[in-house]
Every structure is written in structure tokens, then in C-alpha cells.
């Protein structure tokens, strides 16, 4: 499974007169890791939702390896090769961890046994195997975040949309997650687009950063350059961003 390339062109969306996303364009190369950052309300999750098919943009396009994504339902987007997590995690609380991941794995599996085998390997990668029989609702937040990623990963995506998966994690937990993503990207070649506020994770993972403010892209490029950009510092990072 190698990564897919994502191409976003001129994406725009207004909600009742409020311009949430305005002419946003960026590219995510196959197998790359790109971070989408910006203040709250900048439109980041809205962009994710449009890519993932939750709602349609007012204008613009998004394509995965050239295949148009706009107009597809969320389940069709998943079949196209995109796995996503939600900003506020949504585990299937009444089911076990193993079942949660297995449900994700069923997408590309021919049988329940195959799905369970795939689920096992994913759970091991994300260090959830020891908790596989626990009810999802009883997990701690970091574990729930891991479950969210595991479930999306089990669907066999070529592009992962990660929405603030580091929020609420301690620095050591962040480092662990970063290592997991780096490994996934290196070994499986999965393309990753992540929304993040935790700059520690952004700088450790991202090969390229897109900065969003008031629905518009105000900067994009290599991390080192972006974090020095005066516009970015003014709107989001502030003068004393310690890295």
C-alpha cells in the first residue's frame, strides 16, 4: 500500500454568509506528510470535512491521485482510499477495542477472519493489543485517540486525515504518536495530512506546512521557513514560539 497524492484547488465554503474557507489550494505529494495549522476557527476541520465528503464545498475541487473526491459520500471517500479521524473522538463505545478496529478492517477484507487478522496487526502497531477486549467507552483519552487512528488505519487507506490527534496528550505520549506516524509513513508509504496545534508534533513530522487564517492560506512551504514568516507569527504562532 503506497500513499496517494492529494490535490486541493480553490476550495471555498460559506456558512450563512460567513466565509469559512476561501479559495484554499495546496498539494500533498504521494507519501508526504503535510501539516495544516492555524488558529481555531481558521477553517481547517471544514476543509477536512469537505475532502471526506461530509458536506460539499461551494466551489473548488479535491482529487486523490487525480480522482475527483467532491460529490462522493463519506463511505465512498473511504473506499477511494482516505481514512480520517475526528477532532472529538467517536469510538463505538459499547463495543470492544478489537471490534472497533475490526469494523474498520472489514472495508477491505473478504471475510471476518481476514478483518480480525488485519485488526490484530493494526492494534499491535498502535499498542492497543493488550486492551483489545476492553469496552471502548472505558478507555483513557490517549487510548481513545489511538483507537481512532487504529480504526481509520484498519480501512487500508493511502491517505490519512488526522484531526488534532495530539490534543490533550502529554509530551511523552505525543512523541510516541509521532514515532508511530513516522514509521507508518516510512514503511507503508501512507500519505498523511494532519491538523495540529501541538507544534512539537508538527515540527517533528511535517515535511511541509500549510497555514490557514480566516479561511485563507497565508503561508505554505518548508517548516523552517513557515515558522519564521511574519504573517504566521502575527496571526498564530506569536513572537515567543519555543520549539
Amino acid at each position, binding site marked *: 500500500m503506497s500513499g496517494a497524492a492529494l490535490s486541493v484547488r480553490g476550495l471555498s465554503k460559506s456558512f450563512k454568509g460567513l466565509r469559512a474557507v476561501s479559495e484554499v489550494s495546496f498539494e500533498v505529494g504521494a507519501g508526504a506528510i503535510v501539516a495544516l495549522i492555524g488558529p481555531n476557527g481558521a477553517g481547517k476541520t471544514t476543509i477536512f470535512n469537505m475532502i471526506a465528503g461530509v458536506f460539499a464545498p461551494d466551489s473548488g475541487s479535491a482529487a486523490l491521485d487525480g480522482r475527483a473526491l467532491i460529490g462522493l459520500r463519506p463511505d465512498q471517500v473511504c473506499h477511494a482510499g482516505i481514512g480520517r479521524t475526528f477532532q472529538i473522538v467517536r469510538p463505538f463505545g459499547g463495543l470492544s477495542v478489537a471490534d472497533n478496529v475490526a*469494523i474498520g478492517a472489514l*472495508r477491505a477484507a473478504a471475510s471476518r477472519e481476514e478483518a480480525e487478522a488485519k485488526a490484530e496487526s493494526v492494534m499491535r502497531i498502535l499498542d492497543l493489543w493488550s486492551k483489545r477486549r476492553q469496552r471502548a467507552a472505558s478507555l483513557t483519552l490517549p487510548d481513545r485517540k489511538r483507537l481512532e487512528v487504529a*480504526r481509520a488505519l484498519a480501512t487500508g487507506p493511502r491517505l490519512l486525515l488526522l484531526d488534532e490527534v495530539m490534543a490533550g496528550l502529554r509530551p511523552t505520549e505525543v512523541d510516541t504518536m509521532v514515532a508511530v506516524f513516522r514509521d507508518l509513513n516510512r514503511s507503508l508509504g501512507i500519505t498523511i495530512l494532519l491538523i495540529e496545534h501541538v507544534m512539537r508534533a508538527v515540527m517533528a513530522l511535517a515535511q511541509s506546512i500549510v497555514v490557514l487564517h480566516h479561511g485563507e492560506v497565508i503561508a505554505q512551504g518548508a517548516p523552517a521557513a513557515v515558522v519564521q514568516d511574519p504573517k504566521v507569527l502575527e496571526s498564530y504562532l506569536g513572537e515567543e514560539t519555543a520549539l
Partner: protein
Amino acid sequence: MSLLRGVPRRGLILLALFVAAMALAPLYAGAYLLSVLTLILYFAYLGQAWNIMMGFAGQLSLGHALYVGLGAYSSAALFVHFGLPPAVGLFVGALLAAVAGTAIGFLGFRFGIQGVYFALLTIAFAEFVRILFEHFAWVGGTAGLFLPVSNRSDIDVLALRGTPEMFYYVILVMTLAALALSRALLRSRLGYYWLAIREDQEAAESLGIDVFRYKMIAVALSAALTALAGVFYAFFYNNLFPHQIFAMDSSIELLLGAIIGGVGTLFGPIVGAFILTPLSEGLSEVTEGLKIDGIKQLVYGICVVVIVLFRPEGVWPWIARRLGLDGEARRGDEP
């Protein structure tokens, strides 16, 4: 047998005992007890059919009597007017119910109607059809549809004419078949997807699950199975009245057992039926002597309230825990 894989030994033994006891019932049960058992199994079957839509796929239907009525009326009318035996009529009934369920599901799900609004939609359709049937002369309207009552000692299973024992075994087989089907469904891809939809529709969608399609399957399947109970009802009681069979009270009655026993569990509907039906019958017996109409309903209602407040997840999960049957949280095997 793969259906029984993973079930704890204790559970298998209890299940075997239960099936044996039920299969041998006509030998030790008198006429009255047998009729009560028949009624219990009828509601156990109905509860299971309803449970597929609510317990597995999470869609609350409060108008399921619609499908009972469609099954009953179509098979009965075909029998009365054309002499078609229920063995054939049941397919018509099931198909009709599936179509009705699909229509309601389509209207509901396509337009994003959820939760209590969807439940109210189901009530409205059941009532609507009730009123239609009350004016439908071909099936007797309000005066009702009557099946010719034949000699009760001649057994003709395909025509559902025969002794009380025959009817008992028919409904027993139906109930056990529904149990096996539920178990098979729960362990299938379909079952997993239903549970995901029940838990969180949007999360399920993000995992590649075509929510609309699977919800429709749940409704259609549940409706078709429910219709078969209607077929049984028609040929067992031999009379049908729209205000009885399509009534809101009927819709409520058939789901009480499933909820009391435990929605979404495998044995919940059966346990629920075994609690509520004897309770109802027993109360009838006891209060008959008191000559005060309404006492039975009063006590019945109080019992339901008590169970809802103290065993909100259902009685069966509690019993399962007591009997040591629940094991770990492996959903696929949990009863």
C-alpha cells in the same frame, strides 16, 4: 457448529435444556399451559424480529404492528378468496411487508429523519394503514376478516390447519430459527456494520459503511420476519380486525418484551417474553376474581416501570451475569 463457537459450556448446556424442555412441552403441559407457551413464543418471535431493526441497527420503530397486519391480512385474504395456503401466502405477506418497510425506511433515511421523529413516522404509517384497511371491503373492513375454522384434529401444516400442538411446534420452530438467524447475523459483516451504525452513524460512514443501504436492509428484513408472525396469527386465531391488529397497542405490546429483556442482545427478546406474557396472564387470572376491571393493567404498568428503573439495560444481561455467562466483552459471542 460455527454458530455455537465461543459460547461458554455452561451456556450451551442451559440452551440445550431450554430447547429440550420446550420441545417436550406438549407431553407434560396441559391445554392451558400449552396455550400460554404458544403465546409466549409468539411474542418471543416478534420481539426478535423487532430487535433486528432496533437492537442491531438502532432504528426505533413504534409501528411494527403494520407488518404483522400486512402479513396476516395478505395470507388470510389469499386463503379466503383464492384458497391459497399460507405456505404460499407467507411469501406474499413477507414481500409486502418488506416493501412497506423499505418505503418507510427510504422516506425516513433519505430525508435524514432520525430518532424520535422516525419513530413517530412509523406510528403514523401504521395508523394510516389501519384506517385504510378499515375501509377496505375486500378484506372485510371494520367488520373483520374471518377464516373458515376447520376440523381441529386434521393436521395440515402447509395450510396451518390443525391441533394446538401443531401450532405450538410451528411457533417454536419459528422462534428457534429466528434465534439462529440473529446469532448468524450478529457474527456477520452485516451484523458488525449494524452495530457500528447503532453506535455512531457518522463514524461508521467514515469507515466505508454505506449507512443508508444497511439501514434499509435492517428495516426490510425486520419487516419481512414480522409479517411471518402475522401469518401465524391469522391462521391461529382465524379472525382479523384492523383496529386490533394494526393498533398502536399491538405495536407497543410486541416490543415490550424485547426492551424489558434487553435490546440488542441475543436472548433479550426471548427472556422478555417469558417474563411479560406469564405476568400478564397470571395477573389476568388473579384479578379476575377481584372483579375490578383495570387492576391487571395497573399492576402490569407498575411492573414495567420497576423493571425500566432498576434494570435499564434489560433483565437478560443481569441474569447472564448472575449465571456467569457473559465472559469478557467479546461482542460477537456475548448472548
